[in-house]
């Protein structure tokens, strides 16, 4: 067992880095003021938040007035969808989204569905891409909003925001994207991209948890989710999380400044891991390869064994990953993303996501690969899964259900 922990779950959250922590520190005990107060402490805090807002806005080529701080990307997604739904005219009750969204979008549109909105879920291809033509066909005169995730949290697919956004723009429909995974990793410029709302978050870019932001193009109107004070331009009440916002801004500044070098470093690590692990028989990559994939994400299926067992074994060996298997999900269902890209049950059950940050090293990859070989060997040697009998994959055997039916 290794003493050193290897953290390969950076699409889940990232460790905060020293400069970010340092940027936050003064705002806990010294500059503790409330930005709404009129005295000196208040003004200090207001100025600090203003500077943070300006900096983050600049990083995506937006103006500070277009940015609202929230308690994370989930809140930003909720604010965008519920906020827009509140303002939707009587005859505009149709929302379009994709089948590979994060639950912060998926469950929000489902809730709106229960409240009387029509919802269309766009299919994706085997690599997780939404076809812009499908979007074009799905838009009706009733459509008021399209929301499609930018970088996918499970299989790393980076959607073509320009193509999707232009279709929305041409149809006079608002376009929102959840950029929680892609921010600071994939260039994002609101002047060049036809996009109206973007959700951002901090803890996936080495910033603190519990803070995020919603970009809203000037002129877009949303209702409030909560009632309270006039903070955030009257759209998100509650005293600002000043230390969190300071950390978020610093993390974003560093992330954008280092975008190219970080991507180069992380891609190298990712591809080293992919190359080594795909040498194991009966494995395949999930999601696209190359520059249309998030640098931070690798997702591999190890057939004939189950993801939660793999994950637990790796965890005990000090390697931390995640799985899209049903057994590792609290709801006992495989990830909606893996189902949407067309994986068979057995492929989804054996899927493991390795996700990286700039803090990971090639040496860690080599150690993790060694552990992975051992774990796969151990679990396959005791597997009850007999490919010829149980596999649903063509050529490997008959469908389980069919077989089961015939048996009786």
């Amino acid at each position: 067992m290794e003493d050193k922990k290897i953290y390969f779950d950076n699409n889940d959250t990232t460790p905060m880095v020293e400069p970010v922590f340092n940027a936050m520190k003064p705002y806990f005990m010294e500059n503790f003021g409330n930005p709404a107060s009129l005295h000196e402490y208040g003004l200090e805090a207001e100025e600090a938040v203003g500077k943070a807002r300006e900096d983050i806005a600049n990083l995506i080529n937006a103006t500070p007035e277009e940015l609202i701080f929230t308690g994370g990307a989930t809140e930003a997604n909720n604010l965008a969808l519920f906020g827009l739904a509140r303002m939707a005219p009587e005859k505009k009750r149709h929302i379009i989204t994709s089948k590979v969204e994060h639950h912060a979008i998926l469950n929000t549109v489902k809730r709106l569905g229960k409240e009387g909105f029509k919802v269309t879920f766009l299919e994706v291809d085997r690599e997780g891409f939404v076809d812009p033509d499908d979007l074009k066909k799905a838009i009706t005169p009733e459509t008021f909003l399209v929301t499609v995730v930018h970088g996918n949290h499970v299989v790393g697919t980076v959607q073509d925001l320009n193509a999707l956004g232009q279709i929305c723009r041409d149809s006079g429909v608002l376009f929102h994207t959840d950029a929680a995974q892609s921010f600071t990793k994939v260039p994002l410029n609101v002047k060049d991209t036809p996009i109206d709302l973007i959700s951002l978050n901090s803890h996936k870019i080495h910033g603190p948890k519990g803070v995020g932001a919603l970009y809203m193009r000037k002129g877009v109107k949303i209702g409030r989710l909560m009632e309270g004070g006039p903070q955030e331009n009257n759209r998100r009440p509650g005293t600002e999380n000043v230390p969190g916002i300071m950390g978020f801004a610093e993390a974003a500044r560093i992330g954008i400044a280092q975008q190219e070098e970080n991507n180069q470093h992380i891609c190298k690590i990712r591809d080293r891991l992919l190359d080594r692990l795909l040498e194991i028989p009966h494995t395949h990559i999930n999601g696209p390869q190359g520059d249309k994939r998030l640098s931070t994400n690798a997702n591999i299926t190890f057939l004939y064994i189950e993801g939660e067992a793999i994950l637990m074994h790796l965890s005990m060996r000090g390697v931390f990953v995640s799985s899209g298997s049903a057994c590792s999900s609290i709801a006992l269902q495989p990830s909606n993303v893996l189902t949407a890209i067309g994986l068979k049950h057995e492929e989804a059950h054996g899927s493991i996501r390795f996700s990286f940050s700039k803090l990971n090293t090639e040496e860690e990859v080599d150690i993790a690969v060694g552990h992975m070989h051992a774990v796969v060997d151990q679990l396959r040697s005791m597997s009850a899964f007999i490919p010829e009998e149980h596999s649903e994959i063509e050529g490997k055997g008959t469908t389980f259900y069919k077989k089961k039916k015939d048996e009786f």
Partner: protein
Amino acid sequence: MAIKYSQTVIEHFTNPQNVGEIEDADATATEGSPACGDMLTFTLRVNPETHIIDDVRFRSYGCASNISTASMATVLAKGKTIEEVKHFNAKIVAEKLGGLPSTKMHCSVLAVNGLKAAIKQWEISQGLAEEEAIQCNEDTIKKLLKSVINPHTGKSIISSEMVSYIKVDGAKVFVEVNLGDTDEMYAENIREEVTETIESMKCVDEIIVRILDREKFELKNGENNNGE
């Protein structure tokens, strides 16, 4: 959500007992399905004079609790008579493991059912039991559904009175499940488990499972969430 396992579960997971299969076994049974990612195959050697289980082994396709519960079930069964093992239940195995999270109770059910299925096979081979002719009626379905566990509570959907309606119409079965206070994210899992359980009946061609949330709003297949 993080899953917290007891020390005993971890021990049986990292060092599972009685793994593999017995060559020329007296009985074999596979329980569960690869579709659910939860499957166990048991092989048995039974002394025909004493009815004592001399040896039992398992192979697993499943998660940590699938492996641990099977391992513990074999440890408990070895050296006992088949009559004693027939009194095993999921709760006993889970307790011996220092408890299981409620979402993992179905693993214990699977392990115990698998073991019992192997015993049944042995009894049939010895002429001590016959293949049961399954009656295609509401009572049979209710009996079968006792093994479906609500992952939210770790209890059977029958004992917790979640099944509000069962109807058999020829080869067509209709089941209505009320989620009540159970989180909707479990709807798809419960639907799958119910469907798969009823599918084992030869006489059934079509199964319709209707799932209602607290407000009696029907949750349609494929439209539900699956929290990660």
